[in-house]
């Protein structure tokens, strides 16, 4: 058993990778946690697909405004500098490539960047897609936040998705509890390792040929901050 990051540590790690001034959409579920770790001294503008830029944290109890919610239908607040707009404008922002980063959950990510995160394809399940497909194809950088392995210890990083696709070749980077992977034309490149994980170990866990980019990425990270 290798060292793994907790969900909160992973959220923190992703938050640290987002530069000031970025326009960011955090998908519903775990990615929402990233907001809690954005540095207080940096201005990062959150987009919520239901029609807002400049989303702030949850309100105090007693201050919940049912007219002010996020994509997960949770109560939120508006920061100074916020703007409201209708759904066609909101998804125009996504589709038009104006978001710098979105962070999404995943069932599977394939070597070529294909994403599956909206349906397990289980018969009889009630399907729902929401804005997942628009986010997947819209943001400049699509980050996936996920455990590397399912509860059954199957790798979520795969050669090809077996679940129904959300988007084709859309993922740029995968943040997992074991390591950070970049999607490259040659397959997954390990960008950063957590704890005692090694590229060899990850290759075993995922069953994939992995590129070791840990040295290069350390350099990039320094430059980027």
């Amino acid at each position, binding site marked *: 058993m290798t060292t793994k990051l907790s969900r909160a540590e992973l959220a923190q790690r992703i938050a640290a990778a987002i530069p000031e001034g970025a326009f960011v959409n955090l998908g519903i579920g775990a990615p929402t946690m990233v907001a809690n770790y954005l540095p207080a001294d940096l201005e990062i503008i959150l987009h919520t697909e239901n029609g807002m830029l400049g989303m702030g944290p949850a309100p105090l109890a007693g201050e919940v405004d049912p007219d002010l919610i996020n994509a997960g239908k*949770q109560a939120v607040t508006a920061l100074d500098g916020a703007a409201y707009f209708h759904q066609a404008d909101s998804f125009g922002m996504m589709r038009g490539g104006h978001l710098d980063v979105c962070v999404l959950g995943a069932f599977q990510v394939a070597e070529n960047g294909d994403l599956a995160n909206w349906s397990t394809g289980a018969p009889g399940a009630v399907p729902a897609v929401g804005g997942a497909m628009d986010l997947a194809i819209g943001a400049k950088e699509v980050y996936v936040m996920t455990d590397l392995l399912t509860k059954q210890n199957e790798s979520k990083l795969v050669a090809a998705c077996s679940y129904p696709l959300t988007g084709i070749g859309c993922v740029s980077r995968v943040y997992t509890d074991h390591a950070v992977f970049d999607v490259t034309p040659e397959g997954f490149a390990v960008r950063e390792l957590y704890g005692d994980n090694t590229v060899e170990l990850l290759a075993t866990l995922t069953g994939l040929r992995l590129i070791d980019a840990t040295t290069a990425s350390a350099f990039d990270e320094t430059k980027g901050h």
Partner: protein
Amino acid sequence: MINKVVSSVEEAVAGVVDGATVMVGGFGRAGQPLELIDALIAQGATDLTIISNNAGNGDVGLAALLAARRVRKIVCSFPRQPDSWVFDGLYREGAIELELVPQGNLAERIRAAGTGIGAFFSPTGVGTQLAEGKETREIDGRVYSLEYPIRADFALISAWKADRWGNLVYRKTARNFGPIMAAAATTTVVQVDEIVSLGSIDPENVATPSIFVQRVAVVGEREWLKDDVFVGGVDLEGRPLEASAGTDSAGGSR
């Protein structure tokens, strides 16, 4: 004198016939026109096709319309929610038809109807189940699928204030589908907290211009406002906090 204000929600929903296509505004509960939907249930129209982002929450509003078995088909992006038990039951029973549309395509198809666009090429959903059978085309190195307008006989939406011409302003993220649905329906029916005098909405700030609105009904101020000012004291469903003690007031999920 133009006056689109009708005297009741009953009058507002008059003329919806069996088999009609009806857009229902709102994202979850925010901006959902609860009072108009209740009036539609009372009015009795059935065999409806509903266009809405979700498929109802809890047992009120759109969920109640579904529970009354008035809806033959729903076109939406996100039916499955923790509180969508009414839809879930009907769907599993095979008692309702579902057309699932990615949210941005849903919004843009509604906009296309309102703006006279015959069809458009969207990159969303390409290569997925939801674009199966759609015409695709590569333009400038990217693959798109062809999407058609979604129009309706009626749109039921909720806004904050209107004037008697039908100019509308909304509140915060409750704006969501209102402006685009208003333009995409033959008859757009709006419920508002309040009618304000003509000229009191700044022309710079009109979110839905009068041209898109046919009927306006007043339903009174929301629980969480007092004389236009937010006072809070409610949970996410708009119920006074004392009445919902024990539930997580800031919680909820799609």
